[in-house]
């Protein structure tokens, strides 16, 4: 008797319910044929319907690198350029994260991605009482320009592309980065990278907002507009479905809400008179790569088509680059388990495969120990190696969009496009983006989906290996990182040292200028760069903005 049979009686695992739907609860037919599902099976004749092809498909949208880019944004895809292997990193003080960056670059990583700690994400300095216990824990602590200089010390910012995951205070952190680059003699025009700067999904899912929705979106657009003029190789926003999915949404909700967020930014930029082709080519996206291999791959394909059609037909973009949805992907953190954690390596590998079959431009693979603690160096290395095996050993990079033309994947792609259109209508009916946020529409939809999934897991209609099936009775714990409390003390000491040296009158003058400009329509980026140079802290600048904008209460369920 094999070990698996001993743990779980054979035949119990694959009940009919477990295979009839995707992870998102989408019904799946036993067999798909040229015109959609055609085989025998309980789901046949259900929602799955392959006949929803748009006129574009009738013309045969078979060419990658061409409108509507279903098969990929580049004609030669990974043969021409491999995806960027970009592992998210950041913890402790800026010095410590700088060391991790140097380590990752040595291991062959091709771009940097910065995680900030919760106080920074919420616009608080390290010595704010609310920051107690959180400084440097989930990411690197950042208080002043001196921290930004330490973070990228010794790294050539014109050669390495840098991603920064920050939202409510994105305009402040971007200003710090620009000030740091300038101080080190790098030209803004040569900086490459991405700032997440996507506040809408914070209201839907991740809860790291500070100001009300409308001024928050204004700040997003200030960064988009400023970068279009002065930092042309920079992606000023990464419109993110990742966190929506992590909060428990379905694949269709992730797709629809993310694109709706993107459309809202486009409309706000157009409303302030920026020409669509001046900013749209630099809009970038960030999607989740979850467990359901084919639905995930289809989601990326559907996203490209929906975006391209809207940009060309609804927003009048003429530049082909404005039609292309370029995206970063990250494997699903919420799929990681603390039981038999080595299995997470395998989950991550399949998820990474889904993202690559979907045609992503860059990828982060999670570490196997992330359901237990912050990742160890060993786990981070294995995660990066997973991508390298995928890229160099499996052959999936050899041809463009290998799933194209699969009856199943094309049907899924069409279904997801139709689902997105349905959600766009529901958002419009709710009064548009801001009214739908205020009414809790997105949060309710996502929470309903999260609860429905948990019930499926609890009832074992969805199986998770090691958790509700194939459980190991006596597991050995994995070695994980342990955190000390020294970081908080060190960071607060550094902040106080910077404060002591700074010219308080100059800081106050800069903050007054921030308040003045915030009350007008003036673009705030350069004004905040000025404040950064004076060593105003993240919290000081955020408070100055809150004086004008107010704060959004977290009084939402």
């Amino acid at each position: 008797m094999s070990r698996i049979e001993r743990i779980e009686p054979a035949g119990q695992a694959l009940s009919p319910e477990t295979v009839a739907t995707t992870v998102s609860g989408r019904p799946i037919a036993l067999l798909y044929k040229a015109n959609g599902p055609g085989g025998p099976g309980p789901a046949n004749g259900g929602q799955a319907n392959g006949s929803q092809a748009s006129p574009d498909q009738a013309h045969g949208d078979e060419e990658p690198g061409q409108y509507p880019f279903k098969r990929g944004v580049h004609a030669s895809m990974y043969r021409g350029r491999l995806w960027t292997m970009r592992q998210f990193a950041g913890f402790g003080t800026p010095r410590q994260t700088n060391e991790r960056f140097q380590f990752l670059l040595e291991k062959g990583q091709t771009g940097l991605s910065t995680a900030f700690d919760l106080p920074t994400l919420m616009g608080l300095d390290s010595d704010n009482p609310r920051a107690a216990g959180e400084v440097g824990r989930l990411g690197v602590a950042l208080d002043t320009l001196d921290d930004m200089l330490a973070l990228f010390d010794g790294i050539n910012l014109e050669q390495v592309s840098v991603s920064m995951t920050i939202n409510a205070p994105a305009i402040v952190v971007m200003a710090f980065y620009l000030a740091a680059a300038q101080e080190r003699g790098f030209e803004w025009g040569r900086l490459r990278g991405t700032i997440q700067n996507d506040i809408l999904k914070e209201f839907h899912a991740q809860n790291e907002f500070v100001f009300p929705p409308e001024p928050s979106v204004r700040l997003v657009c200030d960064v988009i507009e400023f970068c279009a003029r002065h930092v042309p190789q920079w992606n000023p926003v990464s419109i993110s479905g990742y966190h929506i999915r992590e909060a428990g949404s379905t694949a269709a909700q992730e797709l629809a809400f993310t694109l709706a967020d993107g459309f809202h930014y486009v409309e706000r930029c157009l409303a302030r008179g920026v020409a669509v082709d001046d900013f749209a080519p630099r809009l970038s996206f960030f999607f989740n790569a979850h467990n359901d291999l084919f639905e995930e791959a289809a989601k990326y394909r559907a996203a490209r088509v929906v975006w391209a059609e809207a940009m060309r037909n609804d927003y009048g973009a003429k530049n082909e680059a404005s039609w292309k949805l370029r995206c970063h992907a990250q494997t699903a953190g919420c799929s990681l388990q603390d039981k038999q954690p080595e299995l997470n390596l395998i989950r991550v590998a399949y998820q990474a495969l889904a993202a690559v079959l979907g045609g992503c431009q860059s990828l982060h693979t999670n570490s196997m120990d992330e359901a237990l603690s912050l990742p160890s160096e060993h786990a981070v290395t294995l995660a990066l190696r997973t991508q390298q095996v995928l890229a160099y050993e499996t052959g999936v990079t050899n041809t463009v969009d290998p799933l194209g033309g699969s009856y199943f994947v094309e049907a899924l792609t069409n279904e997801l496009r139709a689902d997105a259109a349905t959600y766009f209508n529901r958002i419009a009916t709710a009064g548009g983006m801001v009214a739908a946020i205020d009414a809790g529409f997105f949060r309710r939809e996502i929470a309903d989906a999260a609860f429905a999934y948990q019930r499926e897991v609890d009832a074992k209609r969805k199986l998770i290996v090691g958790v509700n099936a194939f459980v190991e009775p006596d597991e050995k714990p994995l070695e994980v990182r342990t955190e000390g409390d020294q970081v908080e003390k060190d960071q607060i000491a550094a902040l106080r040292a910077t404060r002591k040296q700074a010219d308080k009158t100059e800081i106050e003058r800069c903050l007054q200028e921030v308040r003045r400009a915030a009350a007008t329509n003036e673009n705030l980026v350069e004004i905040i760069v000025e404040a950064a140079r004076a060593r105003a802290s993240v919290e000081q600048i955020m408070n100055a903005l809150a004086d004008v904008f107010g704060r959004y209460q977290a009084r939402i369920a």
Partner: protein
Amino acid sequence: MDNSTPERIVLAKIGLDGHDRGVKVVARGLRDAGFHVIYAGIWQSPEAVVRAVLDEDADWLGLSLLSGAHRTLVPRVLGLLQSAGLGDVRVLVGGIIPEQDVAELKQFGVAEVFGPGTTIEAIGQFLHARHTRSADRHKAGAPEGDRHRLSRLISAAARGESPDAGRDLPGARARVIAVTGGGGVGKSTLIGQLIEIIREAGRSVAVLACDPRSPITGGALLGDRIRMPSRPDDDDLFIRSLATPSGHSGVAPHLDQMIDLFGRFGYGTVIVETVGAGQGDTAIRQVADVVVVLVQPETGDELQWEKAGQLEIADIVVVHKADLPRAESVESQVRELLNLPGCRPVPVVRVSSSKGIGVPELWAAIQERLGS
């Protein structure tokens, strides 16, 4: 445990971490398992959490953290519970907690730690297996401190016990404002705004937020306090969530006794939040000095008749979410319905809580009605 009084659990996220998927799933799951779940929301300080436990007279506290700040924040909560005389409230922690920290948290006094992959069923079973504690607690003598005592007496009143409790205390009758209207119309948010005005005027206020419980499981998910201001150091504000029996009036039984208790403990105003429902409307009329009925712009053109029925009991009608399109048309429909011959005059106020419009006007109308 008496089946008619399910255990109460406060769930909260402490610190800055906003990852609330898990806690929201647990909240719904425990509701379905028959608990009365009070969800206090994200970004809670240890002080605010302990205040919620005290005011809600909770048997359990569930803290959710995925940020790694548990070693700092959880001991703070436990210390504050002790010094508030709430050391008997059992504390659960959920989230990403490394194995070696689990033992430490338990040493501090945490009853159990639930990590990723925990089923709702497992949490429910854990709670059910240990329910005897709260039955003992309810039998125990009166706690130290007025607020704690009031909280216990409110619970006893809600259970229909000791109807004469607190009668020995002096104290005036509180003025009662009922705020009623359908689900999603924004009652709690508006009450949050009224609380700010009442407290700015230096007056004390208590809130009884009623939500229906499941007719099948008896469980309830009570999330109204999220939308009200959290002021852990303000002794003149008291917020209690109540699950109302299904099929009843939308009003908790023994409401009059609870209102009486608040008056005796010095609260000048009591706001009762209820879902307006048929016959319940008359029940609320009997205890309230002023009834404020909320309506909101609908997607359809016509005001629904079921809502129109609620207008009969209104002393004041609020057209809420007045910043939305169609607010004006709803207002004129309401005015038309109210201005039938022989009807008493009912003020109609347009309010947008999110934009802060119309709240002072509403407060003025309420005060006029109360004759103060």
